[in-house]
């Protein structure tokens, strides 16, 4: 691949960089295949800004073609002359919500730079992405990739071996392209039956176990919607599978992330829901959750309100409300709370799905586990949970995170489900300052990494695709990196105290706050609070050390 063909101007001197939290500075700008590099000339310390081009969401050119330039069209010859007389400004809006401005001398250079950034920031080919080139000195390829595997997950939970088995029916991704090769299913159901069930579920996503509640043996399953279609098709194997889940307990719940009406309408498109007569032991609860475009637009509105520079902000709260972001947070948390309640308080197993079962479904199962299961609340536990429930479970990161809130590109598959999850986790973190073993800094890091990263963890849309691109062989693993001693210190919560109890979030609008650490991240105030949190962490660690000595 030739990145150079996209780079007409690689170096520009005397560029002025305006970035949040810093005074403007003058220096040299350099564009490479994956990065924008700015070196501050005035400072001896050699302060540099290295921006991954993948992080760029939108590039805006506001050319400051002054009058001189018009005269430049007249006899005055020479390109260089013209270039010095004009200058251009590029505004770069990043997926981590940072907005930076570059004043570049020379209109042509400016246009070249803008063009390069635009092209290189959304290259489609996975193999050209930076994680395949990132070779840090402190790590080598071939180290363990990922934190766990479905096999290990199964082996570790002995309590479920009696009634559940690990199936490798999807070994070649032939049954369900978005599932990992091994999944946990009821022991009573054979692989042949699973193949039939897969044909009856959207995307081949047959019901699999994702959580086993040790206290009462109840489970959470997730799947795609049943393809009942307009003429109410049935699938005996599907019904048997669900019956096998319940076994001797009296009933189970199905949480459908669509409204009853949406579920009805889905039948016209070949989808559907589990009807009462066919699944008599299952009670269906419809809890509509926003998805796709609606969620993405909500993010766009919110970010727009947060970036509003006008001094008159007296309508801020209305704007915040109108973005509806916080009400999406509320819906997600309360539905996850309901799911956890069914399992923990009510003592029943639950199947979660919407249509594809790769977005809201995963959001709910992840949050519910965090609420109920103390082992998910440590730093390792949480990362393992994300790996299992989002990465391995086939959340299409590449499609969902290809653009963020600033992009002018037409929306396709973008949707901030993962960001919504992190926001919900942050709300839990605020409501239970002692219960989670990781820090806000981790959530911020993940929010950035999901959109643009040095690591391969969030590349591609499924395990299968990652296999095709040899992601595990050719890139480094983010989760492993985060757990290395030096990094991990930054991401632990110094106030953490293990707590066996479920943490039930309060979901009233009064209890939910704007995640200002993320959405207002590039303001002085949020930056200041980030530093203070770090200070507090160091303080507590220091006290602990001396107390132990």
């Amino acid at each position, binding site marked *: 691949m030739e990145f150079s063909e996209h780079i007409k101007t690689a170096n520009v001197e005397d560029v002025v960089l305006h970035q949040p939290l810093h005074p403007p500075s003058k220096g040299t700008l350099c564009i490479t295949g994956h990065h924008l590099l700015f070196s501050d000339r005035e400072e001896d310390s050699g302060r540099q800004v290295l921006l991954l081009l993948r992080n760029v969401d939108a590039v805006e050119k506001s050319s400051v073609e002054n009058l001189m330039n018009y005269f430049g069209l007249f006899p005055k010859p020479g390109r260089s002359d013209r270039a010095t007389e004009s200058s251009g400004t590029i505004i770069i809006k990043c997926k981590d919500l940072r907005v930076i401005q570059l004043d570049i001398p020379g209109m042509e250079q400016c246009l070249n730079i803008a063009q390069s950034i635009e092209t290189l920031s959304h290259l489609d080919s996975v193999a050209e992405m930076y994680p395949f080139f990132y070779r840090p000195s402190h790590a080598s390829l071939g180290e363990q990739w990922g934190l766990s595997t479905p096999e290990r997950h199964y082996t570790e939970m002995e309590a479920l071996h009696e009634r559940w088995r690990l199936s490798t029916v999807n070994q070649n991704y032939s049954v369900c392209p978005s599932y990992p090769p091994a999944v946990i299913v009821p022991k009573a159901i054979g692989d042949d039956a699973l193949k039939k069930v897969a044909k009856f579920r959207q995307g081949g996503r047959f019901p699999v176990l994702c959580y086993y509640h040790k206290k009462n043996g109840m489970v959470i399953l997730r799947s795609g919607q049943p393809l009942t279609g307009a003429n109410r098709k049935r699938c005996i194997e599907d019904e048997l599978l669900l019956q096998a889940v319940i076994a001797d307990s009296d009933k189970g719940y199905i949480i459908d992330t669509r409204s009853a009406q949406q579920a009805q309408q889905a039948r016209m498109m070949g989808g559907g829901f589990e009807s009462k007569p066919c699944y008599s032991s299952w009670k269906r609860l419809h809890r509509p959750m926003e998805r796709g475009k609606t969620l993405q637009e909500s993010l766009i509105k919110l970010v727009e309100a947060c970036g509003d520079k006008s001094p008159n902000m007296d309508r801020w709260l209305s704007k915040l409300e109108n973005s509806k972001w916080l009400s999406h947070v509320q819906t997600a948390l309360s539905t996850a709370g309901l799911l956890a309640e069914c399992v923990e308080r009510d003592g*029943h197993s639950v199947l979660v799905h919407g249509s594809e079962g790769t977005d809201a479904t995963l959001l709910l199962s992840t949050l519910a586990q965090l609420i109920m299961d103390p082992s998910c609340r440590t730093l390792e536990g949480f990362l393992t949970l994300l790996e299992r429930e989002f990465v391995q479970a086939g959340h299409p990161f590449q499609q969902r995170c290809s653009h963020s809130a600033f992009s002018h590109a037409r929306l396709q598959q973008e949707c901030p489900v993962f960001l919504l999850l992190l926001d919900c986790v942050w709300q839990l973190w605020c409501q239970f300052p*002692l219960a989670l073993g990781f820090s806000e800094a981790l959530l911020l890091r993940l929010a950035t990494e999901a959109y643009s990263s040095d690591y391969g963890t969030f590349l591609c849309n499924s395990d299968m695709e990652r296999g095709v691109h040899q992601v595990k062989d050719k890139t480094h693993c983010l989760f492993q990196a985060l757990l290395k001693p030096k990094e991990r210190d930054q991401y632990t919560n110094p106030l953490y105290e293990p707590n066996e109890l479920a943490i039930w979030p309060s979901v009233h609008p009064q209890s939910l706050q704007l995640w200002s650490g993320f959405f207002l991240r590039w303001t002085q105030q949020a930056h200041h609070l980030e530093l*203070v949190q770090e200070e507090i962490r160091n303080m507590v660690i220091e006290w602990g050390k001396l107390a132990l000595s």
Partner: protein
Amino acid sequence: MASPVSVYNSNVLDAHISSTSRESLKMELLADVGLLPGEERIIDKDIIYICPFSGAVKGKVLITNYRLHFKSSDADVAVTLDVPLGTISRVEKMGGASSRGENSYGLDITCKDMRNLRFALKQEGHSRRDIFELLFKYAFPVSHGLPLFAYVTQEKYEENGWSVYRPVEELRRQGLPNNKWRITFINENYELCDTYPAVLAVPFKCKEEDLRRVASFRSRGRIPVLSWIHRENRAAIVRCSQPLVGMSGKRNKDDERYLDLIRDANDTAKLTIYDARPNVNAVANKATGGGYEGDEYHNAELVFLDIHNIHVMRESLKKLKDIVYPNVEESHWLSSLESTHWLEHIKLVLSGAIQVADKVSSGNSVVVHCSDGWDRTAQLTSLAMLMLDSHYRTLKGLQVLIEKEWISFGHKFASRLGHGDKNHADQDRSPIFVQFMDCVWQMSKQFPTAFEFNERLLLTVLDHLYSCRFGTFLYNCESAREQNALRRKTVSLWSLVNSKTEVYLNPFYTPESGRVLYPVASMRHLELWVTYYIRWNPRIRQQQSPVEQRYLELLALRDEYIKKLEELQLSDAPRLADDGRGADPSSPPPASSPARQQHYAHLHTPF
């Protein structure tokens, strides 16, 4: 078969109210209520508490001369209420003997702290008459010629809170007197100004007779006096009331000269006068004899800060109460919150204080006033001082700040809060001090390591603002307190606080002397103080107690750490023990540190 009951599924609430152990109910329900020394039982009664969250709860109520205490008798719902009678602003009868419907006959109690209580009684034999009359009498003792409970209580504490604030000592801490400012006792008998304290600091060059002439031109004689002075640049915060300009545009040469002396004291070209009011209100005040400083004050510039008056603030908080109690607004919470304008008022007060602090830290003296100089002025000067002087961010420092800028300078606590007064609709009521505490809370949220005290202290202060158990917030001004022998006959709130400081301390406090704190007064960075305004709603409240417990542990760990550190330093090099912190006397190290004693020695700088 119903779907699982849940807080996530319906509005039925049961989950968050823990159930009591059954054996405790075998005991006499109210026998274990811990009464204060001097507290007496007045009446107890079977009653039904109409809890807005868990419905009608049967139990027993006890009224003493200090509190209303309710305990449920139902094993499944453990509800306990413990409300100081001082918190009650209004008691009304609900329904009549012939009212229909369940629990429609009883009492309706409005509280000053964002909640209402409703009790139902049996609809026979005038069952509520005695309790209503007794409650009415003891909740409003002032209206019945009875003493406030602060005069009845026999509580004793290790610490004496009345010694926290000594005016002269505090002025000395600031470096007064110096060659520009002096301390005057002209108001010793409260003759110059009956709402000012006895000790005042005024420009050195100003004679006593000048002060009297200035007093005649300032509303209620509240002349410009020094609140705070910057140690290095000598810029001062001066507070007063509005000048009596009136419709005819009166002038007073003495007042003009006096303000010029203030400017002259630190030798800057211009004196900035902050008028807290909106411009139009200041103009309107001329009609009643007031006004603002005009062009005749040559070397002064006037800035209006657009903060609204006590009536606007009262209505704003009332609107806030409407959307948070008993039921919180769900569907349009943020826009409803916006329409109360409460946060907007907070923003204006904070940004006014920021302007004052900024002016002073850049070396210019300022004069702050509103109309009478006891509401908005107190907010602005005290918040600016909190930003400028790290001493006020300590536990003792905040006490001094409240004693000084609020209590001694005559914020009309009695009128604003109506202690013991049955007249609940009085137009003088206003939550000005609550608003100040909200601003302090906003600052502590924005600077989590800058304040030695924690949220619990702020809540405790606000609870006892109403309780009338301590003398601290009683009466409108110092002269009234003297007349009523307040210090001799009542206990100070700071006695309670300073006898058990650890629960009020912030483990993460890191003293930083000389640092000016500028909070961000933008709507985006202000939050509603949910843990105060919505604390009665059990669904909103989060796990406070484990967090408080953890903080206490951390505090102990920190103290251990400091102790070990000091031991290490002592054994290493004795001189290091001071840790460089003693350099600036305005910032004491953590209260528990032994270095503190040493530190306070710095304060007693001789004249």
